[in-house]
Structure formats: C-alpha cells, structure tokens
C-alpha cells in the first residue's frame, strides 16, 4: 500500500512519532551526562576557591585535583548575612550536602545577585543609603566565607559577584588573618569582551591585588581599579585599557561586598584568631 505522504493523517503521525523519539533521546542524553556536568561545575568552584588562596601548595591546582584538595585545605565553611550574623557554620568533617542551600559552598552568588541584589540597586538607583538599608533587610542575600588553615596560618576566602559590561562577573578573594589584606584573588566573568574585559581572569590582573588592603585610618576603603598607568596607592590597582566599564563593574562589586566582610572581621575578632 502506497502511503499518501501529503495526507494530514500521515503528517500528524510522523510529527508525533518524531517528537516522541527526539524528546526521549534528549532526556536520555541529558540524564546520562548530568553527573559529569555537575561535577565539572563543582570542581571548578573548588578550583577557584583553592587558587585564590595565594599559597604555593594550591597555586595552579587543576580542576581534577581540586575535589580531593578542597577538604585538605578548607577547614571551615561559614555563611553570613548582610548584617554579619553567622547563619551556617560547617567544618571539613561535614560533607557538602547539595540540598543544604545555606552551606557556604552551595551559595550561588551569581543567582542571588541577579535575583535579589540587582532589583534593589536599580529600584533605589543613586541613593546609596537606601540600597544599603534594603540589602540589609533582605534575607535572601548571603556571603560565604571559606576558612583555610595552612602552616599554622588562617586564610579567609570570601566571594563577591556583580555585573561587568555585558554580564556577570565574580571573584574569590583570600584575606589574611588581619582581616584587611588581600593574599590572592581569582576573577571570573561570563561574557566580557574577549581580549579586553575578559582579561580580568588573567594572572597579571589578579596578582595586582596581592598585598592591597581595604582599610585606611581604621575605616573601610574599597580596593579600586583605576585607569591604567596612574600612580597607585595601597588600595588601587591598574585597570585594563579598553575595558573601562568592566573596571567600573569590578569596583562596584568589590565596594559593595568587601564592606560586609570587612565589618564582619572587625566585629568578630575572635573569628580571625
């Protein structure tokens, strides 16, 4: 029997069968590759945290090694809120439970930024006090701190997120026991212009932050990216030529987030001991 390929019935049956087959195959592909993809994302985060510490042992750690080394170096994971209250406190002995949304490792700063921080900032544009007040009120904004103990010294890795020229930027900064000096950084971006803004994740840019402080005369002073080629003080680093707006984004991100961590370390001297 010759099929009438132009009949409606044939067309509909063909489309239905095809969609079912393709849908099933896609679901299968997605399910079977998901564990590997999730492991990649998790290991990359661990790699970033470890690399930002700025000690020789974790310098250049690969994504494959990161999973094993993470528990060796990171001894405590703490989550604080905007007011500096500790809401979650885990040690290396506690396994990272993907369902525990408050575990410092599971805090998704990029998501929190676009979902909660950005609306607050655009609503109160220009009024810094109002923004601070609204950020303080929000229960959805968290700040993770990872404590690394190595060679008898403690390091605190904090995380920040903000917006560059095109899309998300984020960073991990390692702060020394004094609570104000940077020991290492990792910057990352989603979609900054290749060759310009994307250079924030290059070593020379990140290494500039080492040794800079976020305090002047016992008051918080954010670390700033300046236009390249200027004289720099202890709170300033060289920017990237051609990437002014990425620099502006980095400045906003550091000022907003580091203030919270700075206050936390100041108000909890026992934490850094």
């Amino acid at each position, binding site marked *: 029997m010759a099929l009438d390929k132009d009949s409606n019935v044939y067309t509909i049956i063909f489309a239905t069968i*095809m*969609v079912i087959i393709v849908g099933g195959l896609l679901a299968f592909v997605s399910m079977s590759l998901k564990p590997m993809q999730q492991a990649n994302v998790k290991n990359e985060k661990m790699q970033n945290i470890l690399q930002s510490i700025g000690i020789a042992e974790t310098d250049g750690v690969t994504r494959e090694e990161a999973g094993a080394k993470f528990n060796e170096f990171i001894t405590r994971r703490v989550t604080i809120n905007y007011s500096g209250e500790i809401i979650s406190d885990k040690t290396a002995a506690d396994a990272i439970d993907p369902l525990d949304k408050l575990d410092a490792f599971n805090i998704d700063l990029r998501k929190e930024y676009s979902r909660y921080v950005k609306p607050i900032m655009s609503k109160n544009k220009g009024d810094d006090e109002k923004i601070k007040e609204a950020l303080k009120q929000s229960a959805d904004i968290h700040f993770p701190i990872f404590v690394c103990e190595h060679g008898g010294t403690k390091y605190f890795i904090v995380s920040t997120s903000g917006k560059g020229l095109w899309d998300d930027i984020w960073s991990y900064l390692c702060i020394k026991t004094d609570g104000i000096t940077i020991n290492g950084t990792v910057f990352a971006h989603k979609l900054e212009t290749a*060759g310009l803004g994307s250079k924030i994740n290059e070593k020379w840019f990140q290494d500039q932050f080492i040794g800079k402080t976020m305090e002047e005369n016992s008051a918080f002073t954010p670390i700033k990216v300046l236009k390249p080629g200027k004289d720099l003080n202890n709170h300033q680093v060289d920017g990237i030529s051609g990437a002014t707006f990425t620099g502006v984004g980095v400045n906003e991100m550091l000022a907003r987030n580091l203030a919270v961590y700075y206050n936390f370390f100041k108000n909890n001297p026992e934490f850094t001991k």
Partner: protein
Amino acid sequence: MSEEKKSEPLFSKKNIQLIKNPLNQINPVTIQVLGICSALAVTVQMDNAIVMSIAVMAVLVIGNVLVSLMRNIIPGRIRIIVQLVIVAFLVICVDQILKAYVYDVSKSLSVFVGLIITNCIIMGRLEAFALGNKPWASILDGVGNGFGYGLVLVVVAFFKEVFGSGTLTIPGFEKFEIFGNATDLTGLYAMDYMNNGLMLLPPSSLFIVGIYIWVQKARNPELIGE
C-alpha cells in the same frame, strides 16, 4: 535503480568534487555568505575556532545522513520543521557533550554552540542536498561543507589571534607567544610593539573575510559574476 549506479566507487570523481568544491568554488562562507555570524564571533582564539568547526561539521554530517535516510518518508509540507528538529536535537547533544567532556571549551564557546542551530549552512545543506541525495553522498557533502566553513574560521582566527593577542592557541599544545610576552614586555613588546585591540572585535573578522574573498576571487576569475 540500475546496477551501474550501485557500483559507483565510494570516492568517484563526482564524490570527490562533493568534498573539494565547498573548499573553494562554492565555499559556504565566502561564496554563499552563510554562517557569517559565528565566523565573526568565535574567531578570537584559534582553539575555539577549531572546536567550533568540528562541532558544526559533526552536526552537518550527522544531520545530512539522518535527513538523507529519512528523505523518502519526510512529509513535504513539514520538511523544514523536521530538519529543524533534527538539527536542534544534534546541537543540544553536542552542547551537552562539550559541557561534560571539554568543559573549558564549552565555557568559552558559550552561546555559540546553541547558535549552531541557526547556522544557515546546516539548514541549507539539509534542504538543498541531503533531501535529494543518498546517505554516502550526503556524508561527503557534510564533510566538504564542514571543512569549507572550518577553513575560513581557522584562517580568520589565525590573523585575529596573532595580531590581536600575539598568541596562537592550538588544542593539545601550549599557548604559543608569537611576539614575546605582552605582560613582561619581552620580544617585540620590548620594542614598543602593541597588539591591535581592533583585531579582537567582531568587525575585524569582516575585514579579514573581505580580504579572503578578494584573494580567492583574484585567484579564481571564474568566480567573479557579471
């Protein structure tokens, strides 16, 4: 179907042409001006361009085969939709596989893998070739056009990366620093050489593709239209 046709050698003259022509005479990017979008966007680094070319070729070849196998049962009225579903399916698979196995590359290609779906070369070949030809010829056509696309991408990426970043990244090798290290000011950089920032931006690809077409047409006068 005659016996003669069945015994056509796998690499007959006609079949070889299927691979050779898209490299030059009917190059999908420079002559047909298809797939320009990704040629402009993923050519900042050589390794991205190479992986992108492989991804497009894989989608093109498999898509061609599938459509060619189904060419006698695809209802004419929804053939474009059927092709689109097949391409979309393959692209999502490629994207998922890249994410699982070559995570770093997948990150730097970001949205452009997904945009393979909209690459006109693919739909164009499915509609113009695979729908009317046998699977083996379709495979060759896919390989040929994939190479034709990849060739342009690699050439563009070569000039963009060398003059834009002063480096050359080839998958599996360490990054070559062509003119010395820009940060430590060694090599040519010590003599005040600077990378050309424009080369990193999409417009420079247009210039390079334009020059490519110029050179190509100068060497093949028969390509110049009236």
